[in-house]
C-alpha cells in the first residue's frame, strides 16, 4: 500500500506538468486581446497596453512564460492579477468558502442520497421505493438554477426565513440552503446508484450466506451489503468533491457567494490568465488527490482489493 501510494504520487508530477502546460498554452491561444475590451468602446492607450503586456510578460514567447509560471508556482509567488490585486490573497479569500460549500454539499448528498438509496433498495417495489424513484426523477429533471431561484424566492423573499444572499463571512448555517441546491441533482444520482447497487448485491451469495448464518438484519445490511455496494457510489462522490471544488458558478451567482466559481468566471470573461491558470492548476491537483484517496478507500471497503 505504501509503495503504491508513493508510485501514484510520483505519477502526479508528469500529469501536473502536462496539464499546466496545456492550460497555459490554451489561455495563450484564446482569441482576442485581454486589453482590447478593458476600455469599453474606446481603445486603450498604446502606452497602457504596452505597459500591461510588459508587466505580465505577454510579450515573451510561450515557453519563457511557462517557465516563469512554474517558478512562481513553486515559490508560492502568484503575483498580482490584471487589476493589480494580489492573486494569492484572492484565492485565500475565496477557497475556504468554496471548500465549506463543497464539503457541505457532498455531506448532504451522501447522507440523504445513500439513506434514500438503501431504504428503497431494501424494499424494492415498496412504497418508499416508489417515493424515492419519483422524487429523484423530479430532482433530476430540475436544472440547478431552477431549484436555486425557487428556494431563494420561497425562503428568502416570500417567507424571509433566510436572507436571499450569503454574507461575506459565509457561515455554515448561511451555506445550508445553497449547499442543498448544489447537492440536489447529484443527491438523486447517488440515491439511484446506491439503490441499483443494493438491489444487485442483495441477491448475491454472500448475503444469502450471511442471512443463513443467522446474523441480525442490521449486521447483514450494515456490514456485508453496504460495504460492497458503496464502491461505485464512492467513486461518484470522490469525483464530485473535485468538481465542486472548482466552484459552482451558477449556485454561487444566485446566492452571491464569493467563492472560486465567481472568481474563475470573472477571470475567464476578462481573459485574466493570472487567475485562471493558478486556479485551473490547483484544480488539477485537487482532482488527482481526490481520485487517489478514492482508490485507497476501495481497499478499506473491500479487503480483497490489494495494491501492488
Amino acid at each position, binding site marked *: 500500500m505504501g509503495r503504491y501510494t508513493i508510485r501514484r504520487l510520483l505519477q502526479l508530477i508528469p500529469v501536473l506538468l502536462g496539464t499546466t502546460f496545456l492550460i497555459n498554452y490554451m489561455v495563450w491561444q484564446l482569441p482576442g486581446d485581454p486589453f482590447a475590451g478593458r476600455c469599453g*468602446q474606446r481603445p486603450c492607450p498604446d502606452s497602457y497596453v504596452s505597459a500591461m503586456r510588459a508587466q505580465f510578460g505577454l510579450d515573451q514567447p510561450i515557453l519563457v512564460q511557462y517557465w516563469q509560471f512554474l517558478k512562481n508556482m513553486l515559490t508560492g509567488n502568484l503575483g498580482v492579477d490584471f487589476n493589480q490585486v494580489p492573486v494569492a490573497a484572492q484565492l485565500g479569500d475565496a477557497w475556504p468558502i468554496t471548500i465549506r460549500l463543497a464539503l457541505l454539499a457532498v455531506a448532504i448528498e451522501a447522507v440523504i442520497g445513500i439513506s434514500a438509496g438503501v431504504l428503497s433498495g431494501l424494499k424494492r417495489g415498496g412504497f418508499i421505493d416508489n417515493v424515492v424513484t419519483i422524487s429523484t426523477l423530479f430532482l433530476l429533471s430540475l436544472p440547478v438554477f431552477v431549484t436555486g431561484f425557487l428556494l431563494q424566492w420561497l425562503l428568502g423573499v416570500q417567507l424571509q426565513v433566510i436572507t*436571499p444572499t450569503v454574507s461575506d463571512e459565509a457561515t455554515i448555517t448561511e451555506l445550508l440552503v445553497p449547499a442543498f441546491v448544489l447537492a440536489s441533482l447529484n443527491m438523486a444520482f447517488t440515491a439511484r446508484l446506491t439503490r441499483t447497487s443494493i438491489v444487485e448485491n442483495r441477491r448475491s451469495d454472500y448475503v444469502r450466506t450471511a442471512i443463513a448464518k443467522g446474523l441480525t438484519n442490521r449486521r447483514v445490511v450494515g456490514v456485508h451489503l453496504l460495504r460492497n455496494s458503496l464502491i461505485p457510489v464512492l467513486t461518484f462522490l470522490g469525483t464530485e468533491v473535485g468538481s465542486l471544488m472548482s466552484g459552482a458558478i451558477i449556485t454561487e451567482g444566485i446566492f452571491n457567494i464569493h467563492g472560486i466559481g465567481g472568481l474563475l468566471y470573472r477571470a475567464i470573461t476578462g481573459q485574466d490568465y493570472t487567475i485562471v491558470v493558478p486556479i485551473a492548476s490547483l484544480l488539477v491537483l485537487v482532482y488527482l488527490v481526490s481520485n487517489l484517496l478514492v482508490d485507497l478507500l476501495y481497499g478499506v471497503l473491500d479487503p480483497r482489493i490489494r495494491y501492488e
Partner: protein
Amino acid sequence: MRVTKGAKIAAGSALLALGVAACGGGGGSSSDGGNPRTATGTVYIRGCEPQTGFVPGNINETCGGTVNDFVYSKLVKYNPDTAAPELDQAASIDTTDNKVWTIKLKPGLKWSDGTPVTAKNYVDAWNYTAYSPNAQIGSSWFADVQGFDKVNTADPDGPDGPKEAPKPETDKLSGLEVVDDTTFKVTLNAPTAVFRTKLGYITFAALPDAFFKNPQGFAQNPVTNGPFKFVKWDHNSQIVVAANPDYAGAEKPKVKQIVYKMYKDDDAAYADLVSNNLDFTELIPPSALAGDKWKTDLGDRAIEGQQGVIQTVSFPLYDKEFGGNADFRKAISLAVDRKTITDKIFNKGRVPLDSWVSPIVEGYKAGSCGEFCTYDPTKAKDFLNKAKQEGYTPPKEFPIWYNGDSAHKEWVDAMANSINQALGSDAGFTVVGKSMPTFDEFRSVITEHKIKGMFRTGWQMDYPHIEDFLNPLVKTGASSNDGLYSNKALDEKLHEADVATDQNQSVSLYQQAEAMLAEDLPTIPLWSYGLQAGTSKWVTGVKVTPFGELDPLSIQIKAAA
C-alpha cells in the same frame, strides 16, 4: 443510528426555524418602526469589483467609476436632475477665447488627510496622467492641452510591433501653469468650447501629494477630497466609504457610511433589494423587467428615468462587401421597427431614437435622423432598389455581430427579423444575428478592422454634451470611429464647432454636423437607454444621476415611522 439521530435533529431544527420565522414574520411587522439602518447610519448599495484602484486618471469602467465619483470631487459636477454642469471645487472658471482658461479653487478645501487642496494638486495630477510612461488609461483626455505631444509619445508601430515608444521630452504639460495656491491656468491647443463641461469627468480630478510618494499603495488606500472618504476595500466583496466631515460642499452627505456591496449576478442583488437587505440597485435584471414585474414588486420604491447611453449599429465602411452604400444603409435603418422592439423586448425600458445624440444632453435635437430612423417598409424597399441600381449587391447572408457575454441576443435577433420581414423574401439577402463569445474578442476584431457585417456599437456619455457623441465617434480617425467613417465636410463643421467661442453657436454648429450624418448613415441609431433602479424601504430621497449612478448625497435613511 447516528444517521437517524442526525436526521431527527436536522428535521427538528428546520421545523423550529420555520416556526420561529413564522412568529418573527408576524411580530416583525408591528415592530417595523425600528429601522435597522438607523443604528449604524450605514446603507448598502449594489456594486462590483473595480478593474483599477482609486486613481482617477486610470479609470474608465462603471464599477470603478461609480465608487470613485463618491470619493473624489471635481472642478465641476453635473446636476443630478438636469445634467447641467455646475461649479464644485472651482470658485470660477474663466475664459475669453475658450483657449486660455483660468481656474480658481474655492478656499478652504481639504483632503481627507487634512492637507489643503491646491492648484498644484490639479496640475500635478493632470501631468501625471498625461505622461505616457505612467501608462494611465485616461491619458488621451489631455490631448487638447498644449504640450501634450511632448509628454505623451506614440509607439511608432503600435503595441504589437517590436519598437518601443520613445521617451517623452518632458513630464510637464507646457499648457498648465500654477498661478498661486488656488489658481491655475490651462492653455489649450485650440479653442474648445466644451472644455468646461469636460472638467466634471473623473480623469480631471486632482491627486494629493500623498499619491506621488506611493502610487501603487495609494490606489488601494486613497486620500480623497469628495463627500465620502475611503474606509476599506475587501476585494471581490465590498468597498466601504464613510461621510467626510470636512466636505465643503453645500449639500452634505446624509448617511454615515455607504457599503458598496459586490454582486456577481443582478438577480441576486434584486432578490436582496426586494427583501430589503440591499438599499439600492441601478440594475434591475431582465427577469424582473419582463411584464413590469419590478413595478409590482417594488411599488413606490421603483425609480424610472433616462440615462446618457445609446445603442447603435455600425457598418464597416472600409469593407466593400459589407460596407454597403448610403442608400443601402438607409434601407436597413428604415426596416428596423424600433418601437415594437423597445416595447416588446425592453418593456418600454428603452426609447426609440431618431438622432445620434442622447435626449438628455445639452445640444440634443430630436429628429436629426428623421425619416430614415422611422419604420417604413415600403420606403425601405425603394431605397434597397436604389442601392442595387447604384451597383451595390449585398452578400447573401448579412450578419449583425454582437458579444454573447451580455444580453444582446434577443434584440439583435428581433432587429434581424424586422429587417428581413420589411424587405421581403425577394430582397436577395437575409440578415442574421451572430455572436462572438466575449466582449474582448468582439472589440479586438472591430479595432483590427476585420469584422464582416454590421456590428453592435453603444455609447455611454462621458459628459452630458452633444460633442461627446460626435467627435469621438464620427470624426475621421477618431478613437471610437469603428467603421472608419470619413467625411471632410463633417470634419470641418465639427472643427468649426470645437473652436467657436460662443457656447450657443458652438452647439448649433454641432447640430449642423449631426444633421450631415443623415446623408451617409455610417451608423444606425436604435434607442436610448432608460434607467430602472430601486431602493429598499429603509431609505428615501434617492436620486440617480444621468450617468445611471446613485447620487451619494441624496440617499438618506428613513426616520422611524
